[in-house]
């Protein structure tokens, strides 16, 4: 049940990230021009494709990254594999659901993907650091003297 809840949370987070990516891509094409075959629209199929991709992408996240009992190096290898795996899924679904139609669209989507992936990890590590400081400060108040 806990993993199912995590999967739902991850699905929402990843779907939102994809939605932001697609909106940025659509806005750039609309404002600056580019792929003449590309038409920015946000219909129900687009929404379904985003949620579906989010749901599929969250599976490796729940299976691979939630198991934390392993050495740091092994976990970093998992993160790299996770990043590549998600990139493959997003690229495939993007091709099927026509988030991009030409190579420049693919490159654009790739840049957004890696930017979002790195951003999520940076924010996550920043939250961890902030929590550490809070916990250490609280521990100072209760620690036994030895």
């Amino acid at each position: 049940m806990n993993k199912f809840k995590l999967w739902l949370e991850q699905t929402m987070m990843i779907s939102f990230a994809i939605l932001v990516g697609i909106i940025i891509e659509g806005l750039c094409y609309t404002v600056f021009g580019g792929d003449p075959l590309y038409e920015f629209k946000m219909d129900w199929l687009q929404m379904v494709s985003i949620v579906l991709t989010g749901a599929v992408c969250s599976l490796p996240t729940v299976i691979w990254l939630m198991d934390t009992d392993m050495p740091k190096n092994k976990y970093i290898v998992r993160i790299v594999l996770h990043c590549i795996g998600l990139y493959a899924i997003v690229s495939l679904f993007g091709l099927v659901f026509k988030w991009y139609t030409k190579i420049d669209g693919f490159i654009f989507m790739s840049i957004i993907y890696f930017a979002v992936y790195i951003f999520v990890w940076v924010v996550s590590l920043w939250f961890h650091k902030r929590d550490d400081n809070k916990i250490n400060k609280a521990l100072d108040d209760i620690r036994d003297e030895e």
Partner: protein
Amino acid sequence: MQVTFEKVDSKDQEQAVIKAVEVTDEISGAIELLEGDAKGFAVSRDGKTYIIKASAVYYIESVDKKTFVYTKQGCYDCKYRLYELEVMLGGYFMRCSKSMIINLKKVRNVKSQISGRIDATLLNDEVVVISRGYVKEVKRRLGIG
């Protein structure tokens, strides 16, 4: 509730008196927290039985259905199961993984790992792992969650 604090000169003189109409959950929690350190329980080592105070415990670990209590003086066997000790000790004693209870008062500092788990360095320089699933509870116990 009105709270009065009176400074005393030594640890022996320390005591808390709670005057209330009934024992609410909050009052039970306060009693549990205040009594936590004074509680003692039976442990054994080399065939001898000892009573140790909760305040002497760094952490308690369960290995192969046996319970081991770690203090500054070393490791002791204990007849109680982890879940029993968790209820018995309460306060700043809490689960940090499926097989371990940690005394938060014996933690020198914590450091998060990239995976989200937390490495807690104890006052005896041992490092124990707080699993990701228990981090929220740690923060709650410390009043920051």
